[in-house]
Each structure stands twice: as C-alpha cells, then as structure tokens.
C-alpha cells in the first residue's frame, strides 16, 4: 500500500525572471514499511520535496497524496501533521521549554487528547525506542543523539505511519548517526514509512530505495525495492 505519493510535482519559488524552479515534475511513491532516501546536493530540491510531502508547502502543480488523500483537498494541513505525518529535522526540533515527554505529548495534546492519555502514549513510544529514561529531562540536558531519538518519538506518537526526516543526522557523529538510522530502519520494519532526505551516502544506504535528486528532477534510483527481499 502506498502511504505517500507525489505525482508530477513542480514547485516554483517566486515568479518572473527571479523564479526558482525547485522541483520540476517529480513523481515518487513511498510504500508501507518502506524507507526511501532522497539524495542530492544542496539546492537540488530535497527540502522542498519534504516540505511538500508534509503539507508545509503546496506544489505549484502536480498532486501529493498522503494515505490516499489529495493534500490539495485537505483544508487543515496542521491537523494532517498532527495525525498522519511526523517531521524530524536536523535542528529546530524540540521545544526547549518542554521536557522530553512533554515534547512527545505535544502533537497529541494539540489534537485535543487529554494530558494524562497523551502522556501515556508518549511514554509508550519512548519506551519502544528505548528512551523512557529521558522522559523528564529538558532538551538542553540531552545529547544530540538523544534529542533526535525524542524527536523521532514525537514524530511517531499517535497513529502516524509516515515519518519525514530532513537531514536528521546532520549534526551527529557517524556512530550516533548510524544509531538514528538503525532506529528509523527498525521503525520501518515495524510498519512505519520513512522518507529521508540526506546528502550523505552512508545514511542513504540504510534505505530500501535511494532516489537521486538533481536540479529538481529525479536523476536515478536504486529501483529494485530491497524491501521485496524481506
């Protein structure tokens, strides 16, 4: 089953002579339990792709479907991000004034779930990824890797199956980065879908499928989904 589908998506920033064509007709599908990595140099349109996939941005043309729903018809994109899509960024991730557990609770609470239940759900996710001991610490008391773990937990809490990760390993050393990818791969094995944007081959290689983005178009892909081997 396809969780995320981009069909002929283009995105132009600005107009006239200063128009920047960030994406020029990209089609991409992410299946259930699949980890897809998008690789490309700076300015190749990676982040635009991710922003479009989560509804942080709207395509100039083309369609984005999440869980079979066309985002063009979705009015409350914020609710979509609370319920269907989770984001993990390299930085600007955790709210500094909330504890780890409170950060993970946040999407659920924003969605109207009562604090007690949200906390229970948050603890469940944190336990799943082995971060329950971090629950009551504030972000600036956590290491970079621990922060990303909490961010992943926050992206997964609730019923969300699609995780969009933008350079989640950017500020980390390679063993810690490998740990984060191991965690993402494990979540995929457990049924989640991950779209990972990175410019580092070693992390892209964790993906079932790697898509090369060059100047707003998909240049190539390691097409045979390795997932079929599973």
């Amino acid at each position, binding site marked *: 089953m396809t969780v995320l589908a981009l069909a002929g998506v283009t995105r132009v920033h600005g107009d006239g002579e200063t128009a920047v064509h960030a994406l020029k007709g990209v089609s991409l599908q992410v299946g259930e339990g699949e980890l897809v990595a998008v690789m490309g140099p700076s300015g190749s349109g990676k982040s635009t792709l991710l*922003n479009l996939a989560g509804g942080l941005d709207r395509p100039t043309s083309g369609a984005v479907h999440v869980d079979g729903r066309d985002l063009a018809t979705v009015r409350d994109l914020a609710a979509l991000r609370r319920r269907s899509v989770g984001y993990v960024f390299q930085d600007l991730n955790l709210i500094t004034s909330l504890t780890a557990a409170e950060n993970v609770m946040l999407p659920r609470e*924003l969605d109207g779930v009562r604090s007690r239940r949200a906390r229970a759900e948050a603890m469940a996710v944190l336990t799943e990824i082995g971060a329950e001991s971090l629950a009551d610490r504030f972000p600036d008391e956590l290491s970079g890797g621990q922060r990303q773990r909490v961010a992943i937990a926050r992206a997964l809490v609730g019923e969300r199956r699609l995780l969009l990760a933008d350079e989640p390993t950017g500020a980390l050393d390679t063993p810690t980065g490998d740990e984060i990818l191991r965690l993402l791969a494990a979540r995929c094995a457990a049924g989640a879908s991950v779209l990972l944007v990175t410019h580092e081959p070693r992390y892209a290689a964790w993906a079932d499928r790697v898509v090369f983005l060059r100047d707003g178009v998909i240049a190539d892909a390691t097409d045979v989904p390795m997932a079929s081997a599973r």
Partner: protein
Amino acid sequence: MSALTAALRLSRRGVWQARGRSALIMLMIGLPVLVITGLLVAYATSTLSPEEGIGSRLGTADAALVQLPPGTTVQEGPQGGSWSSGGDSPRPPAEPAEITALLGAGTRLTPFATGSIRLPSGLVTALETDLSDPLTRGILTLGEGRLPGAGEVAVTPALGLRPGDLLRPAGGPPLKVSGIVDHPHQPTIRQVAGPDLPLETSRGLSALTTEGPGWLADTPRPVTWDDVTALNKLGLSVSSRSLLLSRPYRPGLLWNTPATIGVAVAVIMAILVPVLLAGPAFAVGLRRRRRELAEIAAQGGSAGHLRLIVLADGLVLGGLAALTATGLGIAGGLVAVPVIARWGGQIGPPDIPWGELLPIAAVGLFIGVVAALVPALQAGRQHTATVLAGRAPATARRAWPLTWSLIGAALVLGGLAASVAARRQSELVWPFVASLPILLGLVALTPFLVWFAGRIAPRLRVPLRVAVRDAVRNRSRTVSAVAAVLAVTALAVAVGIATESQRRDYRDSFTSARPTGSLAIWGGTMPDPTWAKLRAEAARRLPGVKLATGYHVHDAEGRRYAMRYTTRWNGVRVSRTAAVGDQDLLRFLQGRDDPAAAAALASGKAVVFDAANVRDGKITLRASVANHPDRRIEVPAVVATPADDHQGGALLPRAFLEQAGFTTTPRALYGVRAPAFDDPLWGALGKVTNRVTVTVEPGPQEGSGPVWLWVWLGAAVILVVGGTFAATRLAAADMRPDLAALLAIGASPWTLRAVVAGQTLFIAGLGAAVGLAAGAVTGIALSRPMTTHGTGDPATIALPWPFLITLVVGLPLLVSALALITRARPVLVRRPA
C-alpha cells in the same frame, strides 16, 4: 580609548543590523523621555509668564484700576493684598480727577470695566471699554468686521456669531455684533466687548479685585507701591505693569505642592520602568551576540572589553533614543498645545524649557547605560570556550535567587510598615517615599514570583504551558518585563485610588440646605408692600410653581435674628442657619409628605436634617443679631430625612418662635424649579427691588480630579501596553525556532499566536496582579492625608473600580489580544542552509 571607538563602531553596526530590536529598545527608553518632554513643553507653552500675559491684561496701559464695592477696603503690597468688607464709612466711588491727581499730570484714563453679561446661552465674560482706544491694544485683537461703536459689541469666535447678528443680553437693549475679536491666549474663551454693556459683576471674594468698573491708566511715570497704597485708599485695586514685571517669576507649577506626587511618579517612572523594560532587550541582544563576543575574546578581548562593547550598545541606543525622543517631545508638545487649547486651555508663545529638558534627555542616556549594565556584567563572565563550542551556558542551580528574594521580602515588609506609619503623616510625600521600598522589594522578589507563578504550567493547556515555561526559563527577559508592568501598575493604582478618594471626598464635602434644582428668592429688609409686590411678581413669573414661604425673625425691638448652629459635614465644621416656616416649607425641604415630621412641626418641634445636632430630643441654636452677643436657645427637635443626600439644615416652626417672643415676617420664597439662564425672572425681580437675591441650588458638582494626574495615568497605560508588547515581541523573536517546530508538528497558526499571547498574558497578568496589591497599599496610605481635613475627619477611601478593573484585568487582556492578532511569523518553510 581606541577600544571605546571600536566598541562604539561595533554597537553602531549591531544597532543597524538588529533594527527591530533596536527600535524597541529606543521606544522603551524614549517613551518616558518623550512623554515628559512633551508635557513640559506643553506646560511651558500654555502657561504665561508675566511678560507674556501682561498684554492681554493691561493692553498698552501702565496700570489697570478696579473700583471695589462701597464699604470694601483693600491694601495691596509687595507681599500680596488683603481686603475687608463691611467698613463703617462707605466712601463714594473714586473720581477720575482724584486718580489723575495721584498719578501725576499727563495721566490719561480710559474706562475699562470687567464683568459678565447674561445671554440666553449663559453667562459670558464681558469687557466694557472702547476697544479703539490705543490703551486697550493687545487685550483683544480684531479678527474680522470692525471694532464696536455705541450700541455695538465685538465677540470672540467661541460665541458662534457673525458680524451683523444681534446679541440680546438680559437687562439691556439688543446689541449689534460689529466684529469678531480673538483673545491672544485663550482661543476658546467666550467673551464680548463693547463700549456700552449691561454688565453684571459677581462680587464674590475671588473676583473682588478683578471684576468691576475701573480704568486703564497711561501714566507719565511707572506706578510704584506708594501710588498703589494711595489708590487703595480711594477704594481701587491696582495692577501695575512695572510692579507686575518686577515681581520675581517662578515658572513651573510642576514643582509645587500637589506636584510632589508628579515628581515622585516622574522620577520612578522615568528611571526604574525604562530600565526594567529595556533590560530584557539588551539581554536578548546579548544572547544573540554571545558568539560574536566569544570570537572577540578569542582574538584577545578581555572581560573588560566585552563589558565595554555591551555598555556601548546602551550608550548608543540610549543616546539615540534620548535625542529622538527629545526632538519628538518638543514637536509633540508644541503641536499639542493648540489642540489642548481648543478644549478650553490657554496658549502662549512657544516655550522650550531647556533647563528641564536637558537633564531629562541625560536621564534617557543614563537609562540606556544602566539597562545595559546587567547584560554587560554577564558578558564579562561568559565562558569563551563553552560558547565557541556551541554548548549552552551552565544554568543556575536554583530557579530563583535566594539572596535577592530575601532582600526583596525584607524591603516589602519594611515598606509596608513605613506605609502604615506614613498614613498618619499629613504630607503626601511620605506614603510615596514608603512605597519605594515596597516597589523595589517587589522588583527584587520578581524572580521568585515568576518561578512561583510558573508552577501552574503543568496544569495548563499546551499553548499556555509552552508560553509559561518559556517565560520562566528565560528568566532574565521575563523578570524585568514583569517588574516593569508591576511598577507601572502599582503607581497607576496608587495614584488612581488616591485621586478617586480625593474626588469622592470633594463630592461628599458638598452640602446644602435645599434640594438640588430648587429656586430660592431671598428678600432683604423691606417694607411689607414691597414684599407683596415681589411675591406677586415671582408668582406671575413662575406660573404653576408652588412657592413655599420662609420667614425672617425679629425681636420686639425689631432686630433681625439669624438662628444658627454648627454641624460637622464630612468632617468639616459647617455653619447653618435654620429656616423658619410651615408645612409647605417642610414639604419643599423633604420633597415629599412625611407625616411624622409634619406632626412634629405642627406640635412646635423643629425638624432637623443634621441628625448629630439633635441631643436628648433638642437642638441648640445661637440666636445671633448684629452688634449683640448671641443668645442660646434650645428647641425640642426631631430628626427627619431630607430630599437629597447632600442636604442638611433645620426647619423651625413659626409657632415656636412666636411663643418665644419673636415675630416672624415672610421674606423668602422657595420653589422646585430652576429658571433658565435667560429667564426674565432674574431681571424682573431685580426691577421690583434691588434687595433681593435669587439663587438656584445646583447640587453637588462632579470634580474631575486634577487633570495632570489623569495625564500621568494615561502615560502609565501607554507604558504598560508599549512595554508589555515590546517584551512580548522580543520573546516571540526569541522563540522563533520553537514556534517553527510547533508548526511542523502540526500546530495551527492560532496555536502559535496563542503561545505568544499566553506569554503576554503571563507577563502582564502577573505584573498587574502584584502591582495592584502594591499600589493599593500606597493608594490607601495616600488617601488619608489627601482626604482628612483636621483632626476627627475620617479619611475617605474610595476605590475607582472601573479604572482598577480596566488596569488590572482589561489591560493584560488587551495586550494579549493585541499579541493574538499580531502575526507571529515563524519560518514557515525551512530553507536549507
């Protein structure tokens, strides 16, 4: 020195780079400077020095002479004047020849009478003089038309008349408007001038030496004090040009008695509040520049250099703010004066009191440096390697500083004790002095208060929780904003309570012996037929009005007695004269039928409205008569309720007085109707006899309180709104990454706004709540000396609820609402670096 140059250059660049934040800091430093500068300029411009004002008083004359009423003597000297009335030998009015003889040959006099005329629209001040006489030049200037001749009049624009219109004053023939004239300093004055006016002069004490017939004098030599003494003997009050100009002039009502409040408010507001408001801005700036400073340290900058760089920020911003604010304040003050004058103020030549403005501008600069002081000290302490490594600086172990909190608590307790003690002082300044330790103590306690209030965070909904947590964690920013709101609120509350108490006390002090809106016609000594004519004329002029009759009391020798007693009203001794009359007068005084009181009156008892004066069923009166000692009379009495709250007095039954050997004659009429200003009644009764006084009971007048105090309060509100808003914008800018993360998680834009608004609410709400408590203490302490008049007068303490609620509830909600509708703009789409 070169280090300072480099620091100033860095600051200049930094100020330009962070334009938004710099503007906010400048706003917070500049606002009080601007407000105070504007007020001072407006005040200096709207007040007139003797030189500025003399033209409108004397024209080009050397002296103005006012004839006092017969029987009044006056003595004017360098130390002021004194006058007394009721002299034994009334002298005839002064003759021009007498005056010319006194002032020397060559003296020229032109008649110049001041007073008012009664128009359909009300009383209007009037000058009866020949405006074409060169001596009057400068008193009124002709705007259009021509100067009035015989049977004509010139009017000011406020009367809304055109040349050619007719003016119909009471008691005189209609006058034709010949021209429009302007008063040089009071654009809204309602005044008429002409050579022949039916002038009325109010001969109350306040107007004794300013209203009445008189002359303008052109003398060959300056008028001296010796001349004044001689003229006084002729019954003339003198305003001499040379003497007025030689009198030392002290400008600035701002520096005298009721303004001790103003000075205290100004000092506290002008220094404490901006420091508190600008402090967090510098702190945020420091956080932004931490890395830059660390790099400078890595290049060999010492801690002293880093401090200098941050202080230079304060110097640059404080200097710029002071300069801009002074400029804008002067311009604003000058622009505001004509606007204020349109509401009834006066306007003089533009006046810029540099002597006061320069220290205030210097205070602005000083504020900038002081506000940058704490961040500068922090900058000097920062650990370069930690900052360069991008690690967060170590946070304090305790969420609130113990020592400061203890000092704060001690100061608050000391201030409370001092306030209790200051309450007993009569000087206003002591409660203010006592309020300072409370205020400073609360400022020192604010970190603890913020921490304590922040403990509710886990129980709040998400946006508020994020807001409160962020506010508590960013203590340096929050604390000073809260403290600033606290200080401003406390001052506003204190001044508000004191003002309201004073206003209430003023209103409560009004008392009268007659109901509001009633008419009284008092006859003097007159033969009975005259009274009968007067009575008939009044009845004719007041058709359908039930007139109650009052009586004069005489003894067997025909001496007229007044039945007086003294009562206490709102703590002040008031002398009352008991009315004498029957049931109809009782009904008039009570405004209704009161069978119990009526029965008591019928049985010969006095009906008394001042309950405290009836002891053991009796009231003691002093029967007084001119040139004889008073007699004490005890009258059986009952207490009754009058028509109005403010009413007092007593009514004696005629029967009792006649039994006591007096005779009573009807000489007063009372009716429940206030005739209009232009009612022919005024003139008609005067034509019957001049021994009649007609008066309308206006009822209590609403005092609006000192205008300047309200202006201060307005400024306080601007400061709270401006300051809170500025602090919140800073917080919002600081929270931008958090807001972007919230957005990515799926928070709606309204949630983001709610976070920002929540922080505003926390800051303003906490500050206002604590400020209310602090201000109430000072306000109540202030109310006592402001509302007691001598021993035994209880203090009036009135809480201006609408004002307090607006300030403490409305204002935080207002600034939160402002924050809610202002776009919190997070980075919507993150661009790759």
